[in-house]
């Protein structure tokens, strides 16, 4: 069956008609909502077509790591809820959830999206910790790009909470107006190679076609800040050049939704 389904999908893709009528290098409609959670310091809901992802930012005070005494901490966690796809199970995070979290983490960390020096309150003793939690609400494909966009949107939405005199967070008081120090805005575009063709924003139904995929995180200047390769097939240097170029070209259209 999968072979027949694959052949059928492929026949359409070669004609540059996707399962839902889009072009090969076209994203579905993207919408971003901010401030969907009152208890998080920052939160956002991102929809790419039918795919829906929530992200929340929690800020806490803690000790810095010994090797980075003057930098704030960053942690990204992703959870794929069983209600978002029948394939997802409860329990410890699986391969896909781990990958999504790590690749989003990589994009945010390596792009120096957050100016972590500004999160330091007292060197070696007290820094802000930024915890990003990503949840899938509905999976109709391309969770990776949606997750990164949601994480970035939640970071932009975040406001620092008030601190008490003995350096604890005052949850009773209203949040301050101070935003997180966002220096760059990385977004991820996952480009997929099928045969000799390249596609973006795959639907779940199309995912059986993936031969090789490359997630490219791009900042607003077009700088590449993270890469992740997946799939069985190999990629030539030429392929990677083309895929990066596609990602760089499409990234602004994703950022526009923010």
């Amino acid at each position, binding site marked *: *069956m999968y072979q027949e389904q694959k052949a059928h999908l492929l026949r359409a893709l070669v004609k540059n008609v996707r399962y839902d009528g889009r072009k090969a290098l076209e994203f579905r409609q993207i919408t971003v909502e901010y401030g969907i959670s009152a208890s998080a310091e920052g939160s956002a809901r991102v929809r790419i077509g039918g795919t829906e992802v929530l992200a929340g930012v929690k800020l806490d005070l803690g000790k810095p790591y010994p090797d980075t005494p003057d930098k704030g901490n960053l942690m990204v966690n992703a959870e794929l809820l069983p209600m978002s796809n029948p394939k997802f199970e409860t329990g410890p995070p699986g391969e896909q959830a781990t990958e999504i979290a790590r690749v989003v983490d990589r994009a945010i960390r390596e792009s120096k999206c957050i100016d972590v020096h500004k999160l330091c309150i007292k060197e070696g003793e007290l820094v802000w910790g930024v915890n990003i939690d990503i949840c899938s609400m509905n999976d109709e494909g391309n969770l990776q790009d949606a997750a990164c966009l949601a994480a970035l949107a939640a970071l932009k939405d975040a406001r620092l909470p008030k601190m008490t005199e003995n350096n604890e967070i005052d949850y009773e008081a209203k949040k301050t107006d101070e935003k997180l120090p966002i220096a760059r805005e990385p977004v991820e575009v996952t480009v997929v190679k099928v045969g000799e063709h390249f596609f973006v924003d795959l639907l779940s139904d199309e995912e059986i076609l993936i031969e090789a995929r490359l997630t490219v995180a791009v900042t607003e200047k077009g700088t590449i800040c993270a890469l992740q390769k997946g799939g069985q097939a190999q990629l030539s240097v030429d392929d990677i050049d083309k895929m990066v170029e596609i990602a760089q070209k499409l990234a602004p259209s994703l950022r526009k939704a923010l």
Partner: protein
Amino acid sequence: MTEQVLVKDKEIVVPGEKLAIGMSFLPGSGAYRDSEHIVAQRLGMVSVEGKVIKLIALSGKYLPKIKDKIVGKVIDVLMTGWRMELNSPYSAVMTLKDATSEFIARGADLRQYYDLGDYVVCQVVNVTSQKLVDVSMRGPGLQKLRGGRVVEVSPQKVPRIVGKEGSMVAMIKQATGCEIIVGQNGWIWLSGEPEGEVVAEQAIRKIEQEAHLGGLTDRMATWLGDKTGKSVAPRGGAQ
């Protein structure tokens, strides 16, 4: 206590709503008796026919009915047959005898006939009171579906998609050049040229959304005409 119907005919009721009081009334499909009351079992429109009170369901999953032609998906290969998913709370079994007219040798690998994930058109041959469902593929038009795609719609909207004597589906077929098989369980299989498939799926979605509105066939004819650039006229015809 007086015996009376508590709701108007064609009224929309929710599960648990009391429809009538009195022992002389009989619950039809979608309704049940709770001591002297007739109570709604699901969201639907009341239909009072003499003493029988039944509901026309407006939502909900497919409930298998004998002789329904449905699209099923193989979810398990058993010792002596296949288990099918029907877009329903209940799954069905198709035995070897009902599967094909071919001779199947003892100990043959059943996956060479129908493998996991395959879609087939089949017919419900038996439903027990415990909702054990048997399906068969012996009959005209019952076959394995190759390629194409399966679209899921609400089973309650299937009659609108098929149209009067299959007129609606015939119109979509003519306009898009797709092969379309509508299962009573709300699974619709379509296959054709990529562009046609996209239009056909959009058409089905549009019908599903506007199923409650009148003049749908004419509206769909215009819509399909605009989309495909062909002149599309509503016409009768067997599906």
